[in-house]
């Protein structure tokens, strides 16, 4: 690991620890309104001030970090599991199954990612509870974000399919399920990890985009995306630069994830 990667790993660990300890560190519940001090500047009581509704910005940032940093890896895990299952199965069995999986992948890859999410989001109710909106965002990204990974995993599984040890396992009567579970999946495990790590920054950015557009995590639940919704008014931002903290945190986390990955994977 290069020194810069060590620094990135340390920063990510620190932010994750902060996220876990958020409940203990919160100065106030994220939804609590101090109605007498809306848009307050930073002070000892409110380190990042308050928002237009008088809610403590630091509490919202810490809770929003927890939402975004739990949502993105959870969605990445779901997407990677789907991709691992479909890609390994298609690569191992080949034939019509491989053709169908790859055709479905090509079809969904022909759509820009945000268009696909918008179509699915339009099918679902918009006026939902904040927690339900978090679940919807997680499921949408998890269930629709497997296409790029599936191609890579399928190609690697195809390589394993032609290997000697798999031929030996097949000749000793191993069933496809056992072949998949005991032989193909362990050999592709490093690839699954890489695909999982690649998906996390992508999903963090997607959640931010969706929430800024009003289609992701709903108020009053904070997330990095909906904390940045107020950035449209730049005159307020220039007067209150501390409101940019969610953006700084997001950029730092995404850059750290990029640094942790080998360069050729980042550019995929």
């Amino acid at each position: 690991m290069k020194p810069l990667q060590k620094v990135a790993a340390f920063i990510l660990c620190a932010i994750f620890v902060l996220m876990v300890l958020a409940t203990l560190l919160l100065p106030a519940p994220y939804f609590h309104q101090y109605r007498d001090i809306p848009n307050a500047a930073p002070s000892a009581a409110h380190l990042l001030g308050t928002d237009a509704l008088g809610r403590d910005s630091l509490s919202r940032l810490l809770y929003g970090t927890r939402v975004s940093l739990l949502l993105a890896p959870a969605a990445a895990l779901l997407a990677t599991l789907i991709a691992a299952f479909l890609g390994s199965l298609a690569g191992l069995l080949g034939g019509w199954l491989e053709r169908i999986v790859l055709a479905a992948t090509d079809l969904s890859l022909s759509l820009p990612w945000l268009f696909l999410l918008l179509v699915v989001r339009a099918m679902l109710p918009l006026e939902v509870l904040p927690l339900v909106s978090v679940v919807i965002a997680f499921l949408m990204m998890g269930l629709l974000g497997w296409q790029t990974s599936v191609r890579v995993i399928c190609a690697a599984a195809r390589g394993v399919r032609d290997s000697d040890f798999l031929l030996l396992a097949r000749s000793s009567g191993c069933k496809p399920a056992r072949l998949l579970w005991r032989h193909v999946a362990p050999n592709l495990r490093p690839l699954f990890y890489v695909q999982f790590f690649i998906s996390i920054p992508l999903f963090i950015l997607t959640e931010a985009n969706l929430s800024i557009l009003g289609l992701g995590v709903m108020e009053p639940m904070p997330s990095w995306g909906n904390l940045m919704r107020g950035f449209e008014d730049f005159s307020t931002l220039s007067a209150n630069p501390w409101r940019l903290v969610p953006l700084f945190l997001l950029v730092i986390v995404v850059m750290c994830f990029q640094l942790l990955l080998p360069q050729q994977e980042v550019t995929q």
Partner: protein
Amino acid sequence: MIEVKKSTNLFRIALGRLLVLLCLALAGALMSATLVRFAPGNSVSERELDPRWRPDSVEALRQQQALHQGLPAYYFHYLAALAHGDLGESESLRRPVRELLRQRLPVTGNSVVGGLGLAWLAATLLASIGIASRGWLFEASTTAFNSLLLSLPSAVVAMLAVHLRTPVFCAIAIVVFPRLYSYIRNLLVRSYDQPHVLAARARGLGSSAIFLRHVLPLAAPALLALLGVSFAISFGAAIPIEALCDSPGLGQLAWQAALSRDVPLIVNVTLVVALVMLAANSFADLAGRTFVGNAS
């Protein structure tokens, strides 16, 4: 003879691509029809809930709607209408989808083409300068800048564009540029490190001759494939950018349709975008094959 065979092969591939495009369009149309029909609450017209309407009027209203027909009849009507260019009517804007697409597609097309042009120019230029200089400082600063741009959500770039009053295509270029730069740089580095390029350099060939005769033919197929992919990236970036910059394009239309749950509109917009994407990818693929054929 070989030339004729090559042209025939290329023609066959182009025909195959066109056939696949048509099949995918049909599959996409059927999927769109399914989504429109089965979207929750989509079969209920607001007028049906109006208490001032008499039951027989509500029934007549339902009869008018294709949504209450059987599934095969519904598909047939949908495809027949589609064949005549009728994409239905937007529920939120109360205007034909075809008319909306005709107005909005050129706006997005112009922004996307402008943004892609600018992003490609900047990425190629910077990558070439980086390779020519091979300086540590230049490499580190461009990598850091690129990484910063990659970490910005496109919606934040859009808000920055609103603040700085830059055109929409510039915002699209900022989103697309970092993705192109990393790939083009890696590709050029790999091509310049090939033994025959080193040999050409050792023989004293000029840098422009090396680039045009040895590096470009190696990198061209991958660059052309990247052109297809960059279309998808820029169309994806167009949604938040057009929505937040108030540019009346397809991205803004899709966003408005999603916010008002206008399923027929968003499904048809997506279908059109998918077809544009597929056509762009097929074109890039064919161009790559032609280039490889000519170079070999």
